[in-house]
């Protein structure tokens, strides 16, 4: 997956990234303006909060996918890994009755461990990322069903659990702005991921792997180790998504998750991250995820028939990526 995308990325990832973010951001703004004009019900506090709440899970998954995609890989297992982590939280908290922090840490560690496995299979066994994570997607889906006994696990015995996503720390301080905690967690994960990508060795190697893996290898870097680390970090982030969705539903739904990886990947590419690796930003992904949920919410508010909603969303994804290709050609 190391291809010619390396050269434009090296000519100045900051500038092109910033330009694309502007593009995606203006797209998001345009959608918001159009929907606000079309319906007075769109620009209401409660609806904006509903949109942010709907973005939180997909946004976190998309950030995990962003890291992997920048290395030139792909992670198809983010959706079912999220569910697996939710089920692990259910086992720890509901089946075993352990305290809340144990469930939180356990779910995230389950994500890390699963990411490690994917990373090792890809880096050491040389299985292509598409196949390795496709396999993991199915393994994790099956394990979630086995462990849960194919039934939802409820968190009724852990009273604070729903607060992780549904509570509102901001609302406690500023009652007019009851921003759900899930949204704060999304922004927190985004800041952390942006920091890792921009300021740490792991971030530098993530971009380098996607630009030209062979060059990195020849310069004496332990490529395998960094690659495994990226998948493990992505896995941990999926663990956070698992906690968010379980908290929102007050249950771990074992059959859910497959298909969610596609929405995550859609958010990543709308946000301007290149599927061939070496280029991408967390902010872009965040905007991409927001575009998807604003679109879904706005079309629903306008009572657009569901068949057409799907058509419009698909069209927007293709147009967004086409705009990106045009921009790169014109550079």
């Amino acid at each position, binding site marked *: 997956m190391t291809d010619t995308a390396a050269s434009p990325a090296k000519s100045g990832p900051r500038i092109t990234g910033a330009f694309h973010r502007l593009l995606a951001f203006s797209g998001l703004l345009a959608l918001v303006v*159009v929907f606000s004009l079309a319906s007075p*019900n769109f620009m209401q506090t409660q609806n904006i909060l509903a949109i942010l709440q709907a973005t939180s899970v997909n946004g976190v998954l998309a950030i995990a996918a962003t890291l992997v995609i920048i290395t030139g890989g792909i992670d198809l297992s983010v959706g079912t890994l999220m569910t697996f982590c939710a089920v692990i939280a259910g086992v720890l908290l509901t089946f075993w009755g352990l305290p809340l922090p144990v469930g939180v840490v356990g779910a995230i560690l389950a994500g890390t461990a699963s990411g490690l496995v994917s990373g090792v299979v890809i880096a050491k066994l040389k299985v292509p990322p598409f196949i390795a994570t496709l396999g993991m997607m199915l393994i994790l889906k099956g394990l979630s069903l086995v462990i849960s006994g194919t039934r939802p696990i409820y968190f009724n015995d852990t009273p604070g659990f729903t607060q992780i996503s549904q509570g509102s720390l901001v609302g406690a301080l500023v009652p007019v702005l009851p921003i759900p905690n899930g949204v704060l967690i999304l922004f927190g994960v985004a800041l952390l991921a942006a920091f890792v990508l921009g300021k740490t060795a792991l971030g530098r190697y993530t971009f380098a792997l996607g630009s030209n893996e062979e060059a990195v290898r020849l310069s004496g870097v332990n490529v395998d180790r960094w690659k495994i680390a990226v998948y493990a970090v992505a896995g941990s982030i999926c663990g956070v998504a698992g906690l968010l969705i379980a908290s929102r539903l007050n249950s771990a739904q074992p059959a859910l998750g497959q*298909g969610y990886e596609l929405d995550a990947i859609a958010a990543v590419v709308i946000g301007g991250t290149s599927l061939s690796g070496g280029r991408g930003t967390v902010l872009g992904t965040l905007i991409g995820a927001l575009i998807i949920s604003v679109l*879904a919410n706005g079309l629903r508010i306008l009572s657009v028939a569901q068949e057409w909603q799907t058509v419009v969303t698909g069209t*927007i994804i293709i147009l967004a990526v086409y*705009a990106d290709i045009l921009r790169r050609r014109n550079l």
Partner: protein
Amino acid sequence: MLTRRHLIAAASALAMLAASGPAFAQDNYDIALISKGFQHQFWQAVKAGADKAGADLGVNVTFEGPESESQVDRQMDMLAAALSRNPDAIGFAALDSQAAIPLLQQAKERNIPVIAFDSGVDSDIPLTTATTDNVAAAALAADVMAELIGGEGKIAVVAHDQTSRTGIDRRDGFVNRIKEAYPNIEIVSVQYGGGDQLQSTEITKSILLANPDLKGIFGTNEGSAIGVANGKQELGSNVVVIGFDSGAAQKDMVRSGLMAGAITQNPVGIGYQTVQAAVAALKGEALPPVIDTGFYFYDAKNMDSPEIAAVLYD
């Protein structure tokens, strides 16, 4: 920038175009139905009923549901967006009652009446539930079974699961009816195939091999019923099979005689009566706690009659 602007223009044009369809009923009631599914034939039949009621009663009806019945969070997003739209009433078929409580609470606080459909919501917020009386429907299957096997002998049940409301109700409705009304019929086995065709086939074959004198088997949903019929065919048995629901495969089996017949729910009626109940609630009329949307037994003889053909789906 130019392309992006075109893109937005195209999107908004599309949105306007699609929105202009149902927008005619502007000063009439606006009713949002959030279902458990969308593209499945059963749910499309519910939608058809809801649309018909909308046209008959002059109200604007929208119908949405997630792609699969596991996507509880997507259903919550749909319910949240529906609430933001500020509809006059909401129809809701919960995938998971608990997850929906905070949003239903919101509806209650804003005085938006909620009508549950298909399966109940474990909450007192919905004013009524438009649903199939599964206990009575399965009891009808028991009556037909008793008639077809001559009122005596051994029978079995292949159910879809032991935890869902429909699974429990259909099993109990059938078993209890047999016990109460037909003392000469013995139910030798009740097994669960998860509604999976293949698993239900294997179960059926093992039941038939263990009980060569078995006279009949009841399959409690579409997948179970098809599995039972396949098992019968693979063993060349002539046991009487009664199924549940329709769908192209099951209809063919009934037509060919492999299946003696099946119970069908009335999905069109579920959709129609949900909208009707919502309008009644908005007019301040009293509603019963449960609206029985009806069910029918169909076999090769009556399945083409207009009344039955209207409630069957492929």
